[in-house]
């Protein structure tokens, strides 16, 4: 009986772990995103961390997810949760060459 309880508890723990949303960190460094293409699941998040010694901005105008995190300095991080499936193009308004594509499945 004890063994059965342990198996059930383990199974529940695994399923809860799998259901948890993931959070990844994307750095802004040298006027670029550290990744150009990211695949996520609905509910996952990205923390955008500014690792440059000047301000960055993060925004998206995509239909699936549109937002503007504002401008923030080195060392700060802001997080976006992706709640809808689709392709999200992310940019920095201060540095127009910075691009990141997020595919939310």
């Amino acid at each position, binding site marked *: 009986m004890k063994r059965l309880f342990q198996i059930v508890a383990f199974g529940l723990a695994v399923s809860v772990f799998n259901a948890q949303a993931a959070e990844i960190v994307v750095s802004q460094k040298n006027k670029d995103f550290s990744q150009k293409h990211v695949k996520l699941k609905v509910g996952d998040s990205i923390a955008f961390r500014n690792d440059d010694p*000047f*301000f960055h*901005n993060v*925004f*998206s*105008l995509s239909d699936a997810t*549109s*937002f*503007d995190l*504002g*401008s923030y300095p080195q060392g700060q991080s802001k997080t976006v949760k992706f709640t809808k499936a689709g392709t999200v193009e992310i940019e920095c*308004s*201060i*540095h*127009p060459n910075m691009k990141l594509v997020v595919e939310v499945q």
Partner: protein
Amino acid sequence: MRAFAWALTLATLAPATVLAGEAGTAAILKVCKKSDAEDCIVREFKNTVEAAQIRGRSVYRAYCVLCHGESGLGDGRAAKVHTPRPANLVASQVPPEYIEMIVRKGGAGVGRYAGMPPWSDQLTDEQISDVKQFLMALRKP
């Protein structure tokens, strides 16, 4: 004065960019051809307000148009994600010194909406001065 307006070919600039002063206009007309008037003004008359406005328009199109829009009405493609909406620069009445300050420090730096980034790290002093001249020219008289 109107006869000389062609020399600028600044179709997207406000009327205020038309050369101020007959002497300045005459000097430019002696040097610059209609076909490359803007390049000529920036090259040969780089210290004039007109040259600054031409350079400032390039800066504006590279960095500001995203939020403030092509005409400066605050209707750029990113305007929809900002509340409050980006400033209408055509209707703005703030003095040029304030424009320079908010461009340098951003909205948060002057106690306003933080959606306006600080540009002092990205733009040179000349670019900030140029875009200020362009923004003053955008205003309706």
